[in-house]
Every structure is written in C-alpha cells, then in structure tokens.
C-alpha cells in the first residue's frame, strides 16, 4: 500500500475476517463507505475503542447509495444499533453488511430478517408488523381491505400454532423454503 495510511490495522482486519462473513476487500470497502457518511470526527486511523464508540446518526446513514431506496432501511439500522436510535458504530455497520453479504449462511439471514420484520420488537411478527411490512412494500397503494386480506392469508399460510402471530421458528421455517429469499436478501458492497 506504500505510504498510504491504512485505517484499520492488520490485527483488526484479521479479527473482522474471523468474526464476520466479509472478505478483506469488502471490509476495507465498507470502512470507506462508513467514512464517507461520517463527519470530520472520525480519525484517520480507527482504533478498536473508536470502532465501538463512534456512532454515525441515521440521517447520514440513509444517504448511502446502498440504503437510500430500501423501504426497510430504518428498521435495518435499528436492528443493528444498540438502542432504537438507528445510529451505528463501525462494528455494527460491518455486522450489518456481513449479514447481507453473499457468504452469510441462510439461517443467519433468516434470523436477522425476522428481526427486521418485527417492527415492534416483541420477538413475534404479529398482524401489525405484517401490515407495516406490506405498507412499506407497496407504498400505501392498496386499500385497507386488501391489506387485511393479505395479512390474514400470510398468517393462514404460516401460523402453525394458530396464535395469530409468527414466532421465530415459524418464520424461519417458511422463509427458507422460498428460493428467492437468499439472493434478494443481499447487498453488494
């Protein structure tokens, strides 16, 4: 790399490679992306404490090309952040892209997809969550009747214990049967 200052040390890179599904190149690209949306406060060389404390607020994150048109971007950032502020540190940022990378196994993707679609955070995907998801998808173009039909159909298809909501295992069981899930649940860095 010559004289260029590398923001992450070798040890850090190795650590990230061991703990995430990102390759070395992708980790460096992700770090550049993070830098592009953070303000001047991010130092040129990122130490481990800095990587877990320096947060970028949601307003800056949602300007990223990869996220700006995604209807679920707010929820995605919330899932990976500490509280529900949707502000991310570098570690959380890398984790998010690790889950969305193509090497992440399908069970991990399913687990995080469940969390993303669980808008109220109660560990169940209830009717409200489903309604929320469909509204995000269709930009409010359907009538309320149609929304309730869709929600009831979804529950009919997947609610095994008939409690009116989907638990993690029900969700995972169904979503993994969909061949489009893994290729679609993928963000290229």
């Amino acid at each position: 790399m010559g004289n260029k200052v590398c923001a992450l040390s070798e040890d850090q890179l190795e650590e990230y490679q061991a703990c995430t599904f990102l390759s070395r190149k992708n980790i460096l690209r992700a770090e550049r992306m993070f830098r592009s949306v953070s303000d001047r406060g991010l130092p040129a060389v990122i130490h481990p404490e800095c990587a877990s404390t320096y947060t970028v607020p949601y307003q800056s994150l949602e300007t990223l090309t990869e996220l700006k048109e995604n209807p679920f971007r707010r929820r995605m950032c919330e899932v990976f952040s500490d509280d529900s502020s949707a502000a991310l540190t570098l570690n959380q940022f890398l984790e998010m892209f690790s889950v969305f990378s193509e090497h992440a196994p399908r069970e991990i993707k399913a687990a995080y997809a469940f969390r993303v679609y669980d808008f109220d955070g109660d560990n169940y995907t209830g009717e409200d969550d489903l309604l929320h998801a469909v509204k995000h998808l269709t930009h409010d173009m359907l009538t309320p009747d149609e929304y309730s039909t869709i929600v009831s159909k979804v529950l009919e298809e997947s609610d095994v214990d008939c409690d009116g909501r989907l638990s993690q295992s029900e969700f995972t069981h169904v979503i993994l049967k969909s061949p489009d899930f893994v290729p679609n649940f993928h963000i290229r860095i």
Partner: protein
Amino acid sequence: MCELWDKKENIEFSETLRINVYGGRYEEIWSLWYHTGCLPSVPSRDLCPAYWEALRELCKPLKLKKEIRHRLTARQTSSQAAARTISGWKHFKYTMSMHWYKMKQSVQDAFHDYSLWHKELKKVEGTFGTGVGSYFRFLRYLFILNFCITLLVCGFILTPQLLFRLSDENENLSLSSQNGPEEEIAFEFAVSDGLPYDRSLSSLAYAATPEKFGPIDWLTGSGWFVTTELYYGTYHNGSFSLASGQHYNVAEAYFFVIFLCFIIYLVVILHRVIVLYKNNYIDTVHDMPSTYIKKVFSSWDFSISEKKAAALKHKSIYNELTELMQEYMNDEVNEAFCARVMAMCIKLVFWVIVLGVLCVLGWFMYILLDNGIDENVGETTNISDVSLLIYPLIVTLIMMVVPSILEGIVRFEGYRSPRHILYVNLVRTIMLELTILGVLIGFWYTREQKPALPETTDSMDVDVDTEDSDSTHVQERYCWETSLGEEVYRLLIIDFLVSLLLIILLLIFSIVTRKKSLGRAQQFLLEFSISRNTLHLIYDQTLLWVGLFFCPLTPLIVLLKMTITFYIQKFMALRFLRADERPWRAAQTETVFFALTLVSLILSFLAYGFNILRGHSSPDCGPFQGYKHYVDFLWDLTENQGTILAVIGWILRPGVVAGILGILM
C-alpha cells in the same frame, strides 16, 4: 463442557452452540460460559476451524464475538500447561488443519471476490436488480475464464510457433528458391519424425509467397489469414530448437495445451454448477402453498439503489399482490380429465412442429454449405470472396430471429407457470444452436472422410483457379481444419457485427421514441431480455469451444467481443432500456444457465473426442500432418513411455475421480 481435548468433542461443543442459538437454552449456556470464564482449553495456539465457524455464526453482536475470540486466544497464551499435556501428534494435526482452513479461506477470497468491473456491476445491479446483475456477472465470469485460457494458449502454442517461424524463415527463404515443384511433392511423402530440422510444407509455402492482405480479409478470415497462426494449418508439425539445445515440440504442445484448456473449462464450470445447485436447490414439493409469504417477505430486492428501479419494483410487487388476490377470488377449477389431455396434446403438437422446423433448418444449412463450397474456387477457401459471407449471415439472422419467434410461440401453448415457459424456451433455443453447429461440424467431418482424399499427387479434386504460384497450390490442397476454423471465425465476426448494427438501430429507435408513450412492440424492444442475452452468450462460448482446436486464437477473439459487448450493453441498459416488469427468479435461473453451458461444453468435448479417435488428419498442413488419424499421434507419443500410460490409467480410475469431485465440492 470445559476441558475439551478431543476434536470430536470440540465439534460437539460447536454443535451445542449452533443448535441452541435459536432455541431457548442458548442464553443459559452462553452466559455460563461468558461470565464464569469456564472456557474449553484448546490444545494448540489456534482453535480448530470448527470453533471459528461456530463463532462467526453466532447470532450475537460483533462486539461480543470479538470479546469471546479475545478471551479464547488469551486463555491459550497464558496457559502453557495446555500445550504440554497434548501429544505432539495432535498438536501437529490441529496446526495443519488450521493452516489448511486459512489457506482455503484466502483462496476462496481470491477467487470469489473479483475487482474487475466491480463499480459498473454495482451500478447495473442497483438500477435493474439481481436478475440483470446475474447476467452481467455471468459475462464477467466467462470473460475471466477465457482470459486465463487465452494466456495459456498464447504462451504455450502461439509464442513458440512464432519463434519457430522467425528462426525458420531465414533458412527457408534460401531453400525454397532452389526447390522445384517435384521436390515439394516429394516432401509430401516425408513423414515427420520430430527431428528439429524437419520442414513442413506449410512453412515452405508461406515463406515462399506470403499472401497479400486483401480488403475484406478481416471479415472472411481467408486470404492472408490462412497463412498466419490464426488457424490450425500453419502450425509446425515437429519440434524445433530453442536456445541452448532445448527442443520444443510444437505438435505435442498443441495437443496437450488444448486438452488442458478443455479440462480446465470442464472442471471450473462443473464446480460452479455443483455449488449453485447445492445452494439454490430447495425441495418444495411437499410443502403447503406459501405464495403470500414469499411475496411479502422475499420479494423486495435489497440490492436496488436507484429511484426509478425502486419505483418499478414497488409497482411490480403491487401488481403481483393484486393478481394473487384476484386469483384467489376466482378460485381454481379442477380441470376435467379431457381438458388436461387436450392441453397436453396441444403442447405435443407444438413440440413436434418445433422439432420439424429444426430438422428443416438443419437440412437447409447443409445444402447451403454444400453449395457454398461448390461455387467457390475449388475445395479451398483461400480466396477472400464475399460469397463466403452468405452462410454466416444466414446463420446469424437465424440465431437472432428464431429465438424471438420461439419466445412468442411459447406463450400460446398454455403453460401455467412462468418458470416452465422459461425452461421450454431455453431448451428449444439450445437445441437450435446445437443443430446449427452440429450440422457445420458434421458437414466438414463427413467431407474429409470421403474417399477422395488427396493421398496421391495426381488427385484432381483440387480445382485450382488462381494466379498464385505452385507452392501455394500445394498449400491450398485440402486443409479441412483450416476451413472449419475459418467458418467459426466468420460466424463470430458476422455475429458481432450484426449485433452491433442492431444495437445502433435500437439506439436510434430509442432516441426517436424517447418522448412518446410506449406501445407494446416498443416495450418489447426496449426491454433488457435476460434470457435472450444469456443464450447469446452461451452461443458465443460454444463457438469458442467448437473452434478452439481449429483456430487456436478463438479465445482471444471471443475475449475482445465480450469486452466490447459488456461496455456497450451496460451503456445501453443504463441509458435506454427498462427492466423486465415481470419478476425474475435469479437464483434458479443462474443454475440453469450454467448447466446449459456445461451441456454445450460436454457435447463439444465429446465431439472432439470422436474426432480425435476417428478423424482423418490433413496430410499437408498443421501439427499432425503425416498421421492418418489424430490418435496415431498419441500412440506414437506414448509407445515408449509406459509410465505415461500407467499414470493416465490411474487417473481415470473411479476412486480417484470420485476423490477429485469430493474435493471440488
């Protein structure tokens, strides 16, 4: 749970982690482990790979994973006792497995993370979604593969041949001026035995009278090109000496390098097909219908990053959902038995029609080739003539028009699911392509198998009608491999030019209709059709495989073609074309495309095998002159080398093949 020494127990521990990640007991186990510091001791400096996999797949925040890793590695360095109580053998085993794991990871990273065209691909994927992105990635994959093969071919076949030519030309120039036609004929009978000072006729011929580069030579691949290294015919058939007494046998190199190229293609594509199949195959036969769930939870394409594309996607999801709800209202009617039989009959009729049309096309191609040759001067195609371009033009037009017609027909046949429509379409188009190429190869193969082979000097099959001197008369005699190579070259070039022309027309059309609203025909034209483009790519690649033996520089030509195609298509797609509004199932179709490529490759490989075993080599040109069958060359090579035969025999044993396949997977 602590103090685990055995690899087996280590794996069980990892399994415990994995199994309990989604269950209720995970929190319990994990918190016990984290808080009491009761960590399993490990016998080596690094943990075995099973640990790392389990660590990565923990569904916990990154901070915690780093902490766990830190604790585990710290614990080892502090506990020296751990190292002492483990036998050296186990320590060695674990270290080896760790190194192997790391090496595998870095190799995987290197091979799967190409930086070539990364930004462009990202832009395209952001605008069109994963479906179109997968087409461009397929293109890039083939490009890189072809690039490696080109390097191989250029390095080991082309360069030595050029070196030989350079060193030989000086000596030949003086020699040929002394030789009269009788001497040249006498040379015909000389069987090359691989001595360095052997002269092949081809080198004599072209050294004596280099053809001039005519104006349309680059289009037809004839004329001047026949005397260059572009084709099989000009390669030397023996060995020559490089510096310091080393001999390089061009014929052997030719054979083995081409064989190696095919093996590389086969291994790489087979590996890719297996990996894709493993990842994407999902057994959905026995499940309850889950259409709504799929639409709601897995229809949004997370890689979309452009406003227009996002709007399009929202619209398409809206359409799909309303369609689904309407279908539900209408309810499926169980078809009567008669209706089903009727439907099957219709499909059968259409299949028969399509097969019939393919046969007619094949027969028509054969007639065309036959007439083309008779019209030409003699049996040679050394003369650049515009009439040579008729066959490639017709083939290209067929390959452009007929798949679109097939695509149109398939919609009327009454297939229910879009996936069936796609598969039927793909199979028919591939059959069309194989018919055309099969007829081409079959034609040339049966021609040279005819008894009128010029093995005697007074064979008057050669109908020479040229003003060139006598030495080229000898060269022109019946180099069927070069002729086949020329056909492949012409097909490639004409195909490229016609597609460029079509793109320019499309560009003009889209500029003209930019402001106006789009009718159905216009929509059809301005759509980026993934299946049509991918099939075109597979067609190009099949042409490469067919022509590789007869025209060794085909990978280079296809490489250039692919580069230009990539940039032009990207430009067109981003500026003018729209995405297909219907949903595109990227994952499974990618597997299908690779599988089709594999089928074409295997068929070409079998055709080559057949040719090598039974085909007659031309007696006066190329590296295998003097051998009646290509396979004689191989026997010649191995007659004194029992070891090579033994090695080949061992490699082809079922156990070894199974082992190799196992490693690949």
